[in-house]
């Protein structure tokens, strides 16, 4: 069995208080929430969109939208609520870029500066070559939007199925089936880059 999904970034000690104060229009309180979640939101957007510039725009839009709509947060996982807004901001971006040119291949291969979120920079992360990283990004980009968001939320952001169901507004059965289809598809696409995979991750034929 796999180890537990990636641990969430540090949750502010007084998250409920910060949310409460944000509701009352306290921008400083909200900005402390932004600080805690900005890497997750940016990373989700980058994986969803494939371009760091697009991801920055989507992340900023997501936080603005979250602040404006904070009264619609009714308990439960704040992270899931926030990431759902981020997923919607990404969908908006995808539509905008579809209407214009769409992300270029260069944008897909462009990578932001990496920094593992935890205090423990895993050697595996560093060992993955840039080519493999680009191959992963391309495989994710090839997924239909609904599968892509579920895969990114579970396998990149480390959300639990229940949180994803809440974030994507679907039931757990749908999360399971979208996730499994997305994983099977990514597996097939990565199989084409078998030579890039470190031994540890070599896909069985």
């Amino acid at each position, binding site marked *: 069995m*796999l180890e537990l999904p990636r641990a969430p970034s540090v949750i502010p000690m007084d998250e409920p208080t910060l949310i409460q104060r944000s509701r009352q229009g306290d*921008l400083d309180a*909200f*900005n402390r929430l*932004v*600080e805690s979640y*900005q*890497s997750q939101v*940016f*990373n989700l957007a*980058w994986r969803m969109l494939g371009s*760091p510039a697009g*991801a*920055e725009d*989507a*992340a*900023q839009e*997501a*936080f*603005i*939208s979250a*602040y*404006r709509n904070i009264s619609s947060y009714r308990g439960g996982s704040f992270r899931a609520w926030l990431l759902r*807004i981020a997923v*919607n*901001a990404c*969908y*908006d971006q995808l539509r905008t870029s579809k209407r214009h040119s769409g992300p270029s291949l260069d944008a897909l291969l462009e*990578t*932001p*500066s*990496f*920094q*593992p*979120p935890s205090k423990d920079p895993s050697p*595996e*992360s560093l060992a*993955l070559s840039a080519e*493999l*990283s680009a191959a992963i990004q391309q495989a994710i980009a090839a997924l239909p939007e609904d599968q892509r*968001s579920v*895969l990114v939320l*579970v*396998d990149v952001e*480390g959300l639990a*199925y229940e949180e994803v169901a809440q974030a994507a507004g679907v039931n757990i059965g749908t999360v*399971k*089936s979208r*996730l*499994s*289809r997305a*994983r*099977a598809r*990514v*597996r097939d696409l*990565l199989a084409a880059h078998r030579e890039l*995979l470190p031994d540890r*991750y070599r*896909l*069985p034929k």
Partner: protein
Amino acid sequence: MFAFTRNAAARRSEILSAYLDGVLSPAERARVEALLARSADARRELETLRATVAILRAAPYAAAPRSFALTPVMLRRPASPSTPHPNQWLGPRLLLPIASATALAFLAFTLIGGSLDLFTHSGAPATQPDSTTAFQDSIAQRPLATAAPAPTGRPAPLAAATARPSTAPVADAFAPSASGPQSITGVRGATGAPAIGGAQTEAINSAAAPSPDASLKSLEAILSQPATENFPWLALQLTAAALTAAAAIALAWRWRTRRSSP
């Protein structure tokens, strides 16, 4: 059969994927383990999924390149469409019904106005010797207006041509050598079909070039008419055509958006 195998394969992938995440009930887990014990295929599939997930989890995690903290200036901008319940494409969504309704209204206006000859007769003297024939003729052509609706802009010029005083271009248009009533009857006779058939033939003749001289002349006659008589029709019909086109574009856009939305 194929669909069935594909479904079965998808179901197996799904349960193996959930098994990897440790979210199965004890009973389901026992079933999967029994499957794994007897099927090498299932074991291979589980391994490929496990490797895929491990790769995804080891993929680099990007740190935020800058602070996304909000400033009061950012909040002064109008609300963006990315809300928790986005309601996009308000524009096209409204455009479609508005454009279709307006186009329909114009079309109805054109047809009713055309069949009552409300507009085209306004400039024509009612006491012309052949006014009866012209009237009959306009009755014969009424189905035309319905057969060739707004966007072409043609029914009106035709009606205008029939409503013309006989001393002027109508005679020219339909039979260069003869006078009004006879010439019109002559044309109908020649096509061999009364009423609607005849009218349609005339429409085709005067609308599409290949007929003799006559059609050219009728076109000239129409063009040389006072602008005041033609203008409102043309403008209204072009507007109706433009609105219909806008409605069609909005429809196509909505269809595309719906297809691509999650």
